[in-house]
């Protein structure tokens, strides 16, 4: 390697300024290029934690609602979370519409939470917006709370017939997911 008479020495002496800057540029370029690569290599490590294709595929669920009578509801699952599908009775619809918006912590009308022409179909997540428990009230005989809708036993949040929060610590109404009616008897959620 060393063909010259003298050998390389530890470089604690600096050469001419210009030469150093030119030489440094190559080193800086090499290190920066490698650095870019290192950052790019992190991308797959982060992206792999995003939902995988099979999880994304389960993002829509079709539900058959033909057997739900007025006044009844079913609990089903969508994206591994509970969904309440309730067929509201006319009494319950009237009750919901009679509530002044100013009384509501999270003001929404029943019409805003249902599809036009199908205001009797109330489809919401069965997840309390406080800390995530599954409220009671969807099944026969379950406690429907002081407002006749749903009642969360964990901390006492009470929802009305339109699943809006009326009492208790929950900040928001039960979430209405994206859904559409594929037919009169089938709903696609998600």
């Amino acid at each position: 390697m060393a063909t010259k008479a003298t050998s390389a020495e530890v470089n604690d002496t600096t050469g001419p300024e210009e030469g150093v800057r030119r030489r440094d540029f190559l080193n800086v370029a090499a290190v920066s290029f490698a650095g870019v690569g290192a950052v790019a290599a992190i991308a797959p490590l982060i992206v792999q934690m995003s939902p995988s294709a099979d999880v994304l595929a389960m993002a829509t669920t079709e539900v058959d609602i033909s057997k739900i009578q007025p006044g009844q509801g079913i609990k089903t699952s969508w994206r591994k979370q509970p969904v309440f599908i309730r067929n509201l009775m006319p009494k319950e619809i009237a009750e919901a519409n009679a509530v002044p918006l100013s009384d509501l912590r999270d003001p929404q009308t029943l019409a805003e939470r249902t599809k036009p022409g199908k205001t009797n179909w109330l489809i919401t997540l069965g997840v309390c917006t406080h800390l995530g428990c599954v409220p009671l009230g969807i099944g026969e005989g379950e406690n429907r709370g002081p407002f006749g809708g749903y009642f969360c036993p964990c901390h006492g949040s009470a929802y009305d017939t339109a699943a809006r929060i009326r009492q208790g610590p929950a900040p928001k109404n039960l979430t209405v997911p994206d859904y559409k009616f594929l037919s009169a008897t089938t709903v696609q959620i998600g």
Partner: protein
Amino acid sequence: MVRVIGFLVGLVFAGVLLISLVSNAASYFRNPPAPLASEEFHKEPKPLRLASDGPFGKFDNRQLQRGFQVYSEVCSACHSMKLVSFRDLKGIGYNDAEIKKIASDWKVQVPSINPDTGEPATRKALSSDNFPSPFANEVAARAANNNALPPDLSLITKAREGGAAYVHSLLTGYQNQPAELLKKFPDAKTPPNLHYNPYFANLNIAMPPPLTTDGQVQYEDGTKPTVNQMATDVAAFLVWTAEPNLASRHAAGLAVAIFLLIASVLGYFAYQNIWYSSKREVRVTGALDPENQEKNRRAKAKQGVAG
């Protein structure tokens, strides 16, 4: 001490190995092993060229769709594809609506339970389901196939030596047992439930020839469905089922390889830079100091000592 014990251990191992070697050699020459029909008559797969071959290979979606047609019309009667989902078909060019239809029309239904009674039942497949197996379990599969188990095809081109070429050669390789074989190995006649195929490891395969006539499948894109064409298309399709990410793998590989090539070259020049741009002049002291060397040389010359 260590060396003495080591010496003995080494001699012991070498000795036992020598005994094994001599004994094996003796028995080999005394009773040379009989030749096997499968060794002599087995054929290596014929080379197969597919669009997905090589570092720049990509899939030909039209061929994959033809191959899928062959699978669904011929192979799926016995062979499952459990690791592939209907939604994966998007990768070979079908859209969501077509996939939904393929899934719900699929002749095998997905195991499910009756929502009212809880009894085992079946339901139509959804796009998010995997291809349902034609048989409920291994016992059922063997019962329907003379105790042979049709292997799952999801990974078959990665699970067999020779890959797609092997699959293609196997499908097109059925023939009558050659007379030559029967003459040399009269005991090696193909048993009645098996079929002679020289590309199969032990020459006799339980699967009857699945592609027997041209036109067995009517291709939607109008390609002529010869046996060779169908075998090639289904082999290409099975490469895709085993490696659906092949195209993105090749593309990413090109980017990474070019990046690393540039990084190596830049790095090499930076390395040369650092090693040779450091100060070359040396403050040397001691025996190798040029001043000292000069002094030494003059002193020696004065004393008349040879340098």
